[in-house]
């Protein structure tokens, strides 16, 4: 009996291996696996055996039945596609849904900026968010009586120095990393510095006390204004498209001289004027300039030998423009209805 079962098994598998279409399969199923098929008949015949033999052969028969059915459905699925499809189906139905997480849009824009400058051979640098007055202001040529140093503009940390003065603060810009980088790496230097910054101002749809900047620094022999202009043009084209134009105008920052503001043609209206660019055709996006000699000196770099350029973008502003976000507070809100859109 066991022999017969094994023989049937071998026969079935051999024929199954030749299966090419559904009709052949149906015939095969009818012949071997159906209620009146050969296997059923063999199993039916077991009742005539003695108890001991019956138990032994019964176990084998069940094992073979399971195996053959599994093999059959494997082959039949392979031939006819997913189980259960026997007629036309609504192919427009959605597939299984997979859960999806989301990155903060600031991260997305920051990555984009990092990639542009990594491709230009810049290194990406970090610096401390809790900074000293020296690195955040003095070394950057910000005079002791500059308004930015006011309590109402800067968060100071309640850890007075030996003279009892507050000289620790939450950095107001990523620029202190310029000095730290120059001191660490010297010149020449190509660095991009993204990071979190702080200003002591009440929050509303347009103002945030916690925001993000990305700042670039290039120091080498004979770096000039035409170089700065070209780098900023590259950023504009890469961020906003190949037709993007740059316009520069004077703007004072203590740590650069000359100092500039840069505007790009509005990527939404291509400079024709729209709501986003307040109908000017231009978006004011970047502050830039040639590094002030005093700043180079503070970084331990000889301004007679080297010159540098620096520029800074507000990542919040870039993200707001890029995605048309109307409330700056959303970035730090942790609201899934916001994050799920990115």
């Amino acid at each position, binding site marked *: 009996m066991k022999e017969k079962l094994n023989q049937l098994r071998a026969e079935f598998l051999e024929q199954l291996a030749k299966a090419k279409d559904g009709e052949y399969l149906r015939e095969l199923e009818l012949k071997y696996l159906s209620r009146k098929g050969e296997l059923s008949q063999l199993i039916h015949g077991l009742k005539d055996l003695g108890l001991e033999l019956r138990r032994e052969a019964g176990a084998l028969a069940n094992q073979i039945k399971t195996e053959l059915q599994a093999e059959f459905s494997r082959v039949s699925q392979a031939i006819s596609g997913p189980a259960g499809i026997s007629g036309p189906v609504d192919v427009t139905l959605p597939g299984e849904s997979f859960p999806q*997480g989301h990155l903060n849009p600031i991260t997305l824009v920051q990555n984009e900026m990092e990639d542009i400058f990594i491709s230009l051979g810049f290194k990406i640098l970090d610096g401390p968010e809790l900074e000293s007055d020296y690195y955040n202001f003095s070394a950057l040529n910000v005079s002791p009586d500059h308004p930015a140093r006011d309590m109402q503009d800067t968060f100071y940390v309640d850890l007075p120095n030996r003279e009892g003065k507050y000289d620790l603060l939450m950095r107001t810009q990523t620029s202190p990393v310029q000095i730290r980088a120059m001191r660490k790496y010297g010149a020449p230097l190509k660095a991009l510095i993204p990071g979190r910054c702080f200003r002591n101002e*009440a929050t509303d749809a347009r103002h945030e006390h916690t925001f993000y900047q990305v700042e670039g620094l290039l120091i080498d022999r004979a770096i000039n204004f035409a170089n700065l202009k070209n780098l900023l043009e590259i950023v504009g084209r890469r961020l906003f498209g190949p037709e993007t134009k740059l316009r520069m105008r004077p703007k004072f920052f203590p740590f650069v001289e000359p100092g500039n503001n840069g505007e790009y043609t509005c990527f939404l209206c291509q400079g024709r004027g729209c709501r986003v660019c307040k109908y000017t055709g231009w978006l004011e996006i970047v502050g830039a300039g040639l590094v002030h000699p005093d700043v180079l000196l503070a970084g331990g770099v000889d301004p007679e030998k080297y010159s540098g350029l620096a520029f800074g973008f507000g990542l919040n502003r870039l993200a707001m423009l890029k995605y048309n976000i109307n409330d700056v507070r959303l970035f730090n809100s942790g609201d899934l209805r916001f994050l799920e859109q990115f």
Partner: protein
Amino acid sequence: MYISYNWLKDFVRLPAKIKPETVAAELTGHTVEVEGLNRQADQFSKVVVGRVLEVRPHPNADRLRLTVVDVKTKRLEIVCGAPNVAVGQLVPVALVGAKLPNGLEIKESLIRGEKSSGMICAEDELGLGKEHAGILVLRDNAKVGLPFAKYLSADDIVLEIDNKSLSNRPDLLNHYGLARELAAIFNLPLKPYEKFYQRKWDAPGHQTHQLSVKVEDSERCPRYLAVRVDNIKVQESPAWLKARLISIGQRPINNIVDLTNYVMFDCGQPMHAFDAAAVKKIEVRRAAANESVETLDEQERILDNGDLVITDGRKILAIAGVMGARHSGVTSETTALVLESANFLAPAVRRTAQKLGLRTEASVRFEKSLDPLLAESAMFRFLTLLQDLCPEMKLAGVPVDVNNSQSRPVAIELDLDWLAGKIGQVIPRAEILGGLKRLGFTIKNESAESEPLSVVVPSWRATKDVSRREDLAEEVLRLYGYDQIVSHLPVLPMNEPEANEARQLERRIKQILAWKHSLNEAYNYSFVGEEQLKKLNIDFFQHLRLVNPLAETQGLLRQSLVPGLVGNIKTNQARNEDFGFFEIGTVFFRASGNLPKDVANGDFLPYQEKRLGLALAGGGDLFDRLKGLLASLLKNLVDHEVAVEFAVPEHCPGWAHEYAAAKVMAAGRELGLIAALRPSAYVDLNLKKSVVLAEINLPALAELVFGTTTHHFQELPKYPPVSRDLAFVVEPEILYNDVRREILQFDPLIRSVELFDVYTGDQLSGGQKSLAFHILYQSPDQTLTAEAVDTIQQSLVEHLVQKFGGRLRDF
């Protein structure tokens, strides 16, 4: 700041072909941002002069009146709320369709049931001042129906300048300074300011009250000019003066006050007129501690020793450079005045204005370091104009000039080769010279073509703005035009860029967590509050504090990402079932770290650490899930098998659950902590979802990822493994980690141990647990027999029983 186009034309003749729009654009491109350009006529479009014909009470409102107003083309019914409206008045009427300077749009309307076809305007509604108590009543000779702009002679164009972009230009907060820029930009002649005043003021034979001036603090007051003028008649300003002030948004007050303002907006020098009756002499000194004065705005101001004051020897007449005292101000009874035109030290004025919260037109200008020479020309300009306004005026003595300023001309050497290198392009010498000269710079050696230029900075730029050749480069560049510079990239030697591994790791972590584990990236504030930490049972005693927080809830610097992440869960719990967040952020500690604080005295910044925080919320065994998630994250970060282990922590943060908290370990390193939130926090924070959190030290993780040795391929096994299962029942205090380690170390043929089930419950007593393992036996050099494996397994069981006191589980 508003700038009048007509006013600019006093100083520079702008040809008609230069449009105001061009002026605005060029100023923006070369000097300072022009934010807006308004034509006065547009501002008052559809506002006309009307005559009030009838005034009746409103049937439904006591405070409203029904009026009929003649505007020549028709008679309008207008509801008016002003108490001063009366029959016969000539008034400004905004017709339907008018859009007023304050933004109000006039529409046909029903006011308390009565039709109103227009509005009779008050001063503030027209942008002419702050008065709102009643409607503006016009001169008797005004013509009914006349456009209001015509009535005002308001044909001016007003440029709105962005003050912020002037922070380094003390010379530009006035019309003459901007006219100078325009002359330079368009290459037009600029009329010398000396043409606008009379220099000689000897006051012969009239030295009745020669004023005495004493300056005690000459550092804070480098220059003080004053003169007493008699025979003054205080009255309304003439129309031209009022029109000028109105055009730039200043409310006319009286001829004297208006004239001091006028000169300030003309040339940038703040001036002050005292009533001579209150000023016998002038002494400029530091205030005493707690000395007080009532200022013109009727506020009591308490001063300290850092504040500079103008006194008459006894009483304070003014807070220097900020505001005058009330008792010494010019009133309608004033017949003689003492005029002040002074120079005060910028930081001192700024400090005082800041401290008192009193930023005035004067203090804003002094804060930028004014030219001491300006005080003199401004005084002459004032007197010259005063002569027109009060022809009877007489100087009661010669002007006094206490001048301790040291304005020596600054000469800067400008090498044109250096300049070309700085700009990246050669600008023709003639362009450079022409531009600088038009801006008021003088060139000492213009004819010596081979020498570097010796450029003398004009006094109005020398106070702080221009002091080195880089500043001159900016002057040349901005005047030449940024658009004229042909951009090009630097040619630099190639070098090996250094990769920022930590930053790359951050990016990978973010992408794995968001894209593989469906977590969402939070950016939480670095600031936390005591209340929030109390509810989480976090001790905040050692937290760093802000000196000047925006709010109580944001007064401390975070030492953990947990409070923020719990906040994220709370924000979203009502709208979501199962969800999770992560954040990569910095935490701050009191102890010193390893970054220098400055270059001088070897101090270090407080220790700051980057962390990865994770939070899961919702149903199921979240503790288990987050453990698995961490293990999966690590497998994705490290290029070879690193087992994540969870160990019993020595101490636990306050927020963590007493029983469900574990150290996260890998390759013998402690990476952080995973824990369920403590039960009390759910009530205190009104949390509706289970929350499990983990916090990982990012530098430690980076060390693990980047510090591990290279991964070696293992040859595929030649001999098959043999698997045996083992379910072992132990007391609750026996830990999985220990049992697993014991099995792994028991025999070299044991290749791996995998836990596949943990059971506690009815079938076991007293909290016992059953740990079920798949154990894989494999030999590198032979096929293991079942007997050999069984023998090892048998002695393994005996060993475990002996070690942990457990037993095999029988099913």
